[in-house]
């Protein structure tokens, strides 16, 4: 099997393995940061496929490399947005854990909507216009 292989096909297989590894891990793990990293690893796997395709011709193909650079910038965009969202969610959860004693239990219902209505972290109890 190894004899019929050339460099490009080898990297295409590595790319497929990395993509599948990242995708399966993304769907199975629950921790938010682990999922974000798994998503980014899947992105790297797909981009690895594109660069391996670009490297088939003697001078590596310019259009496919430009596509990969575009893909890289999109990857940093969605990873940045995901990181800020994780930070806000875990900031909110730190508050819930810290503020559990003084909050009435029924307010603690995890329903996304009721949570949003009172919306405010206790120590910032400004007038929440309703």
């Amino acid at each position: 099997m190894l004899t019929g292989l050339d460099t490009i096909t080898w990297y295409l297989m590595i790319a497929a393995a990395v993509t599948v590894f990242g995708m399966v891990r993304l769907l199975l793990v629950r921790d938010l940061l682990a999922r974000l990293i798994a998503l980014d690893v899947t992105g790297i796997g797909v981009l690895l496929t594109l660069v391996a395709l670009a490297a088939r011709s003697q001078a590596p193909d310019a259009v496919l490399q430009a596509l990969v650079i575009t893909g890289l910038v999109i990857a940093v965009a969605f990873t940045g947005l995901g990181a800020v969202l994780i930070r806000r969610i875990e900031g909110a959860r730190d508050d819930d854990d810290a503020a559990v004693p003084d909050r009435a239990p029924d307010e603690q219902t995890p329903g996304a909507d009721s949570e949003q209505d009172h919306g405010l972290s206790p120590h910032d109890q400004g007038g929440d216009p309703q």
Partner: protein
Amino acid sequence: MIPVWSALAEFSLGAVVLAPLLAAAVSMLVPLPARRVLGAAVGLLVAGLVVPLVVSVSAGEVPELVLGGFEAPVGIHLRADGLGAVFLAVTALVGLVLTGYAAVLPAAEGRCAGPKGWQQGHPGFWPLWLGCWSGLNAVVVSGDLFNLYVGLELVGLTAVALVALGGRGSWEAALRYLFVAVLGSLLFLAGVGLLVSVTGTLDIAQTREALAEVADPEAPLLALVLMTLGLGMKAALLPMHRWLVPAHSSAPSGVSPILSGLVIKAALVVLLRAWLWAVPLSGGAQSHAAVQWLAWLLGALGAAAVLGGSVLALRQTRLKPLVAYSTVAQIGYWFLAFPLLVSAEHDDALAAGAYGAVIALAAGHAIAKAGLFAAAGLLKDRYGTDEIAALRGAGAHHPALILAMGLCAVGLIGLPVSLGFTGKWQLATAAIGAGQWWLIVVLAAGTLLAAGYLLRGIAPLLLQSEDEPAAAKPVSVRERLGESAVMLLGLATIGTGLLGAWLGDLLGVGAWW
């Protein structure tokens, strides 16, 4: 076609994407009140730009823009065929009404953490919404596979950010939506990579010609599977729909209609481009059997979505999740027609009928669902909750709103004068033509269940509530204007019902057969 008109159509092909993008950029520099005025003005401009496109397509032409003057394999082509014109028009109509709705009601923009705690009205809504609108138009007119990926990513990221404007409750739903949307786009990109390795070109029309000669059907088949899986995630087909309900119901009231009405359609348009335009199904018998099997799988998932989504909607106690589950059910209808689109014996009349049905259902759903979600959002912002029990008797203060919700329900159920009815009728005739009787059963059951859960959502609003209604503050002028926006969408649901025939031959322009 007089040349000046077709030149205007070509110009507006690029302008329809770049004008809202320029407005999104400029709106980041101006304060909030100016952003609302800018948003409304650009909404009108984009709607105006769509008119020459629709006129030139209905006259039988396919306006095509060669960007930068570089021909297909090197450069990018933008095309507006029948499918493109229909979705440009629907996006412009619904987008313009929702822009007015959000400009009038500050609560519709979301909740932002002001100095005195959580305030209503969010400055971040406008650049993100205009960026999303530009992305939607980019996806619909693009003729290049990688450009479709960039457009899908633009729509996906702005949609995630718009959900996150809903304050603390919506961040988790937004992050979950981000994971699914981006994974879907990456799978689509993997499919594009596979296609490029086999055909050597990125342009959709050239991919079709190149794939016609390709001998072994394996790579195009795997590419089609990858694209279908990725776009199925983004369009929330049944097994992959769990991100949709929390995202759409916790989003601000101005954003939910955008998500359910417009953003879901972008994935559907790309799926149709991939299935019908890019990968010709006239391959060898062996590949055709596999594609048949895949189409039947999509049909089965569609049927499961129609029935499962409707039953889940029946069990909801709050209005916005009910409407969100209704979206999951309605998505099932579009995939129900896939087995007919890829029918074995190749008669194009049947495929054209099924294709017209899918587009009519999707367009009708866009208008009706946007109206219903906007109404539900308005009630939630006004009464603080969308519990159906708590909203009992709210109809007394909002007669016009309930009428508009009724009209939208007509469109969603598929009663006669609406695009929903046209779509279901064409789907039924195509199913009978192909002898697929089970489709009729699913259609009937879906219609009944839709009537069930929609009435279950709207009826309590009309009943007289036993305890005297809470001393609700009088309905402000802004809320009346918001209600008139919902009424516009309700009337549009009925109005577009009359255009069924015109829609049929508009779709014939530049179709794949």
